[in-house]
């Protein structure tokens, strides 16, 4: 291990420019990937916000027995798809309507709004099919007069989400692929710069594993450093957008940031393994 570390530091000392270049290349590739990740994260957060408004409203018949209703509320809340259920009394419904339509207050004075149940679904159950299915189930209660939800809106939202998800996945894979290729070729330069040394090592009887080891350590270390740099750049970009546009956007959570940096290390490691492996196969 000591020998490996010495070889790694020798490599650094001998080709400092190449090392700095590879770290920067890794950093910028991961940065581009990170920016994409940030956009994806914020789009998905925004969609989640909108999606939370998906709700099913069940209007209750006049004079529905209180006990039956509260039992039903318990039942419905226990549906696996349901996040929570609120009872909206006629008074609350009126207050809310007034608030929402301030200037037409008077219209509502006389009106009697029915009591209702407001049902919100858990994330992952907000697709059109599930919404319809839950609505049908709620409709079976005898005291439920009518069930409404905005079918068209649920469908549109679902489409947007599906498209965004698929686009994100494809773009993400493309970005990651490009990052891996760029990083791999940078590391290949490092390997080629030491081709002579590798051939001498092999000549005197070094095993492939021995030849490979310093490159793996080197690749991992460069990947981690590049990852940290990319994270710092992404954070700066995020702050800039936040402040100049005044949007309160989201940044990566500590866990996913750590995973990202570690992914940099793993990409460096795999890139090195592939470059050295290819080189060793060729000679």
């Amino acid at each position, binding site marked *: 291990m000591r020998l490996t570390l010495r070889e790694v530091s020798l490599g650094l000392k001998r080709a400092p420019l190449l090392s700095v270049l590879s770290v920067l290349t890794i950093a910028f590739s991961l940065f581009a990937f990170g920016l994409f990740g940030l956009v994806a994260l914020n789009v998905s957060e925004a969609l989640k916000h909108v999606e939370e408004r998906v709700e099913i409203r069940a209007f209750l018949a006049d004079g529905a027995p209180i006990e039956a209703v509260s039992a039903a509320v318990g039942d419905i809340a226990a549906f696996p798809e349901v996040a929570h259920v609120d009872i909206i009394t006629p008074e609350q419904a009126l207050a809310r309507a007034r608030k929402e339509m301030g200037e037409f207050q008077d219209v509502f004075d006389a009106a009697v709004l029915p009591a209702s149940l407001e049902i919100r679904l858990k994330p992952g159950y907000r697709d059109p099919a599930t919404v319809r299915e839950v609505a049908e189930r709620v409709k079976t209660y005898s005291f439920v007069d009518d069930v409404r939800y905005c079918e068209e809106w649920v469908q549109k939202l679902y489409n947007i989400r599906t498209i965004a998800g698929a686009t994100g996945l494809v773009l993400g894979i493309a970005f990651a692929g490009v990052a891996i290729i760029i990083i791999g070729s940078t590391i290949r330069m490092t390997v080629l710069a030491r081709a002579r040394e590798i051939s001498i090592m092999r000549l005197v*009887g070094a095993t*492939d594993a*021995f030849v490979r080891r310093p490159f793996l350590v080197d690749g991992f270390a460069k990947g981690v450093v590049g990852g940290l740099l990319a994270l710092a750049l992404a954070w700066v970009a995020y702050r800039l957008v936040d402040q100049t546009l005044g949007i309160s956007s989201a940044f990566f959570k500590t866990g996913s940031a750590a995973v990202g940096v570690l992914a940099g290390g793993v990409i460096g490691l795999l890139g090195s393994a592939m470059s050295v492996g290819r080189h060793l196969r060729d000679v």
Partner: protein
Amino acid sequence: MIRFSHVTKEYPRSGVALNNASFTVAKGEFAFLTGPSGAGKSTILKLVYMEERPTSGEVRVGGIRSSDVKRREIPKLRRRLGIVFQDFRLLEDRTAEQNIAFALEVTGTARDAIPAKVGRLLTQVGLASKGTSFPRELSGGEQQRVAIARALVNDPVLLIADEPTGNLDERATRGIFQLLRDINASGTAVLMASHNLELVRRSEYRVIEVTRGQIVFDSAERAAAEQPAPPAV
């Protein structure tokens, strides 16, 4: 030690470099490999240290057969061989000592055993005072001595030398050749490719001559052919 049985080597683009070659080199023997440029000398040596595999036929070196050798067995073979080249192949950014130590480290020698061994090898090749010099600070002959010391780290049973004196003047050539003779005298077989006809002719060693991929002359075979002949009366 070495046995070539009907070995043919064909390179993908340049065609046949070695054609149906058969010969053996015994333990402790010294043999020259001569012939014009492009004859296939380096190819034979590469087949010996298994940098190349024969297209057909079989190469055996110290019990390892080219026909069934696995990639991970090759380092083991290399550790029993010493290899030197015309261009020395030293690492320019390491001193003579470090170049020799490198070969010991690479093959997993215990750290504390390395300095003493390096010192002994430097003395053996006559460079005891040049251990801390970098290759660029050494003459060609001295660089080749470092390379030979490096080749000796694992006490090889066979030393392979591809034109080891090709870049050296006459004096240095004689010095290196003498060193190789000494090494051979202590029991290591030597297989040396050389252009230097004078050197080859003057020595008493076996000569194998290659031309256009074929062994056209082998002094050992001639001796064997002559021996059974009845003495003239």
